[in-house]
């Protein structure tokens, strides 16, 4: 049943705006692949083209070895889940789930047992007679999922399926979807701007920005080996430290980061450093550099520390309280880096965070707005 999704050279323009620009990737059969990117990155347009709801200007779409590029949505037999559920509001839950079976003239008895099966699967068996406006957001999205799955689609396309739900329900549904996918094994393509959701659910992540693919890789590689500054900044929180390349190293504030061989000697560059890749010690260690702890915010089991480098640059560190060994505000200590990724300064401007609510404080780029707010410096 499950088939891989392959898109090749997909391009789509709306008027002057190039929403999708030569996008190619493959979503492997039976796995969840995430299309991750900020709003306006073209990820939803890609999904809608795969579903046949938009027609590409050029490029091709293959599902399960069959070309779908010019097929109508009806012919593609895909399951599509919309962000705002798009349930038929004049039909009850049963009728919604049954719709895809009815229009394809499935036998009555067969349709009934399939609907029962799906309502059980999504845990909504007692709610068959309810109408969409009598359900919570999470329940509605589960109905939408059951409806999409009812005609046994080859692949499942999910367009920000949890985007309209509050954080708690989102967490719960995410876990539930993970379990459901393990059970069904249907090839799924998930569009999301939530990097956590992508990393948690998907076995492969395609990061998009401005209509182009920035990187397509397993979550671990996306996180630890970002291909571009944008990916480094967008997926997970990152510090930015500027410096100059000398002998294949990025030098800054009396220290250096390796792996800058790809950059010309003497050029300006920047290192992306994860807050939890910063280690602090009271005395100098190999390749460490002196920092001053400007601020410490205790979050219970770990602390966020705002550190000032010798040259005035600021970085954030996140450390378990166990590993702090009494380091606190106002102290001069030594920092070393477990991991850092160097990019040339003109490899791309600092990435925009997800959605409109992007905020960045100097030296810190994070894709989680709340995190920035919680740790904004100088809120005394």
């Amino acid at each position, binding site marked *: 049943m499950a088939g891989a999704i392959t898109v090749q050279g997909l391009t789509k323009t709306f008027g002057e705006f190039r929403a999708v620009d030569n996008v190619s990737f493959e979503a492997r059969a039976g796995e969840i692949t995430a299309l991750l990117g900020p709003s306006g990155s073209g990820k939803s347009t890609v999904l809608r083209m795969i*579903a*046949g*709801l938009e027609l590409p200007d050029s490029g091709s779409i293959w599902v399960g070895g069959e070309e779908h590029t010019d097929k*109508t*949505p*009806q012919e*593609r*037999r*895909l*399951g*599509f889940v*919309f962000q*705002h559920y*798009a*349930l*038929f*509001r*004049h039909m009850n839950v049963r009728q919604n789930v049954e*719709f*895809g079976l009815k*229009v*394809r003239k499935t036998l009555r008895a067969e349709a009934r047992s399939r609907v029962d099966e799906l309502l059980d699967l999504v845990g909504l068996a007692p709610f068959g007679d309810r109408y969409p406006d009598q359900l919570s957001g999470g329940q509605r999205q589960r109905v*939408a999922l059951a*409806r*999409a799955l*009812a*005609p046994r689609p080859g692949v499942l396309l999910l367009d920000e399926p949890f985007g309209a739900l509050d954080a708690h329900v989102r967490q719960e549904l995410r876990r539930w979807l993970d379990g459901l996918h393990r059970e069904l094994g249907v090839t799924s393509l998930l569009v999301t701007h939530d990097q956590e959701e992508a990393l948690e659910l998907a076995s492969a992540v395609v990061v998009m920005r401005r209509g182009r693919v920035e990187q397509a890789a397993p979550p671990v590689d996306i996180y630890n080996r970002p291909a571009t500054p944008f990916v480094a900044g967008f997926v997970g929180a990152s510090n930015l430290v500027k410096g100059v390349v000398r002998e294949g190293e990025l030098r800054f504030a009396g220290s250096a980061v390796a792996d800058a061989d790809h950059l010309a000697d003497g050029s300006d560059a920047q290192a992306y450093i994860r807050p939890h890749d910063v280690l602090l010690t009271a005395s100098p260690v190999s390749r460490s550099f002196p920092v001053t702890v400007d601020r410490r915010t205790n979050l219970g089991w770990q602390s966020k520390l705002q550190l000032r480098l010798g040259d005035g640059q600021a970085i954030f560190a996140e450390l378990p309280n166990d590993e702090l060994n009494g380091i606190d505000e106002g102290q001069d200590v030594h920092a070393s880096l477990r991991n850092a990724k160097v990019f040339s300064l003109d490899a791309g401007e600092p990435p925009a965070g997800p959605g409109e609510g992007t905020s960045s404080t100097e030296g810190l780029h994070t894709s989680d707005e709340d995190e920035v707010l919680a740790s904004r410096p100088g809120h005394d």
Partner: protein
Amino acid sequence: MTATQTRQPPARKAAGLRRTSLRRRLGPGVLLAVALAYVLVLLLGPLGGIVYYAFKSGISVVGQTFTQPDVQHAFYLTFIIMAITVIVNTVFGVLVALVLARDRFPGKRLVSALVDLPLAVSPVIVGLMAVLLFGTGGWFQSFFAARGIQVIFALPSMVLVTIFISIPFVIREVVPVLQELGLEEEQAAWTLGASKAQTFFRVTLPNIRWGLLYGIALSAARAIGEVGAVLIVSGSIEGKTETATLFILRAFDQYQDQQGYIVALTLAVFSIVLLIGIETFKRKRTREAR
């Protein structure tokens, strides 16, 4: 989200203050009394008058009026015109509404404005336009005459002007419902395998049904009550091109006042029943919207 939440309460409070201060100045009962008096005098007064005069010289005239062949024909004609008008305006109204709500094309705003034209133009002028097109020497007169079709002074022109006059109602009711509905439910239906026709009849139509019925009811009421345009194009031939409203005009001309009142009352009752129906739809629709 939080911004709108914090902005809302002061606005509501201000509106509340204004309302109470106006009430306080005028006294609690005055506004109610004015409103009720206005409605009673202007709406119920004339209706009461018609009822009184319709039954003034006894109930026997009522029965006599309804058995008159010209009266029966007038009602029949009014009904036929209303039925055709409603069917045409429903089908094409939904079509135009779909295009106006969904498609983008140059001149869309002009078309949208044109839809309201019949509300702005006097029905008498509409009648005159029809005469210019289909009357002797009119643009299309020779075309239809050559095929033996009588347009002016006959049913076709009467239906035509009535359709023209009631074009806006279905469109104006359906467009906002379609806009609010959006495209997603229909797209969901497509991905589930529903053809365009299945999608329209199973998803779109059920969603716009209350707005559509409201528009149909308004169209019907307008069609029944039409006088000016029909008067000009029909020629008011007794027993042939005389609608119920035209019969009323003739009845008064010929000093058959009571017959006129009886027919008028019948039309009024029909419209009132329709109006109550509309109100029920409206209430049901708002309840559903919630």
